[in-house]
Each structure stands twice: as C-alpha cells, then as structure tokens.
C-alpha cells in the first residue's frame, strides 16, 4: 500500500532524524575541537560524510526542480557569509588567547582582522558558487521536464 500521507509522515520524520544527526555531529565536532583540542584531521572521515550529507539536500532539491526561485537572496547574501566569518574569527580569537597571543599588541588585532576579511571573502565565494550550481541544476531540470 502506497498511502501518500504515510509516505509524507515518514519523510518528515526522516528529515527530523537527519536534523538531529546533522546538528548532533556538529556539536560533537565543536566539542572535540574546542574542548578536546583535536584537529579536524582526527575526525576528517566523519567530517567529510557530514559535509556531503549537509550539501546533498539542497543539491537533490535543485536536481528535482524544488528550488524556490521566487525569493531573492537580498540581505542574506551578505549576512550569511558575515555570520560564518564572525564564527571563524571567534574561534581564531579563542585559539589566540589560549596560545598566549595577546591583543595588547598589533599582531593579534591584525591577524584577527585578516581572518575576518579572508573568511568573509571565502564564505561569500563558496555561497555564490553554491547558488550558481543550484540554479544550474534547476535550469537543467526545467529543460528536461518543462520544455
């Protein structure tokens, strides 16, 4: 029996399970990096699977024509990379302080400002590339299914 409601409920539950797994693993990674002082190399295999799993929903959505193209990115185009850059810089400041690199000298401020600027540019580039890729996949789906 293929009851569409049952299928929808199962999909919603699976999506919830995925979110728990996704954010749970993120919390574990942060715990390992911040508290246990582990390098990403110590759990790189898990991080790679986590990264692929995190990217796959949006890619699969675009490949199946589910991208919402009616919404313009607006301020989110800048806010999301800025948020990422602030989080990365926060980590860098934490490590600087833990390693004894003080902010009484210019080098501390310069390194953090550089981290902020570079991570913002990288995050903006990655998000823009990701958006272009999603739009490309959506257009390809449209060509195959709507034309």
């Amino acid at each position, binding site marked *: *029996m293929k009851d*569409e*409601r049952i299928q929808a409920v199962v999909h919603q539950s699976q999506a919830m399970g995925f979110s728990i797994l996704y954010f749970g693993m993120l919390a574990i990674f942060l715990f390992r990096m911040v508290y246990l002082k582990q390098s990403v190399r110590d759990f790189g295999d898990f991080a790679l699977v986590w990264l692929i799993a995190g990217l796959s929903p949006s890619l699969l959505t675009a490949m199946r024509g589910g991208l919402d193209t009616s919404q313009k990115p607006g301020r989110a185009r800048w806010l999301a990379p800025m948020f990422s850059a602030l989080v990365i810089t926060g980590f860098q400041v934490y490590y600087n302080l833990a390693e004894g690199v003080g902010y009484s000298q210019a080098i501390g401020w310069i390194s953090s400002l550089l981290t902020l600027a570079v991570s913002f540019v990288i995050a903006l580039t990655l998000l823009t590339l990701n958006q272009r890729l999603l739009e490309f996949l959506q257009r390809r789906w449209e060509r195959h299914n709507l034309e």
Partner: protein
Amino acid sequence: MGDEVFPNRVRLARLEKGYTQQELADLISVTRQTIGLIEKGRYNPTLSLCLRLARALGKSLDELFWDGGGEGHER
C-alpha cells in the same frame, strides 16, 4: 498547511454508498486513518488521491471538494 482545514463532503458520500472508512480505504489503497483525516478536513489529499476517491464514491470532484466559493461549507 499546519492547522488549515479543508472542508469536503467525503463522509456524506461514503455513508450514501454504505461504506465503512476501512472499506473505502481498502478500495483506494490508503489507510483508514487517512480517510478519517480527509473527512475531518485535516489532511489535504493530492489530486491523484482526490480522483481515486471520486471514482470510488461515484461522485465528481466538485461534489466532493468544491466549497461553493467560500459559502456554505459542509463538515
């Protein structure tokens, strides 16, 4: 969707035919719970399922689901 209610006349049409919810569910290959939710207007079925329901109950889509332009909703 959420708490949105979709009024319809599925329950009346089913009773006219003398089917139980389980019998109707078996006819169109869904669960009894799905029929119950549709009758209460708490589940919005796909067009495909609406058509299967209409065929099974011998009614048109209008007769089952058209709300008369927002007046005289039947529960």
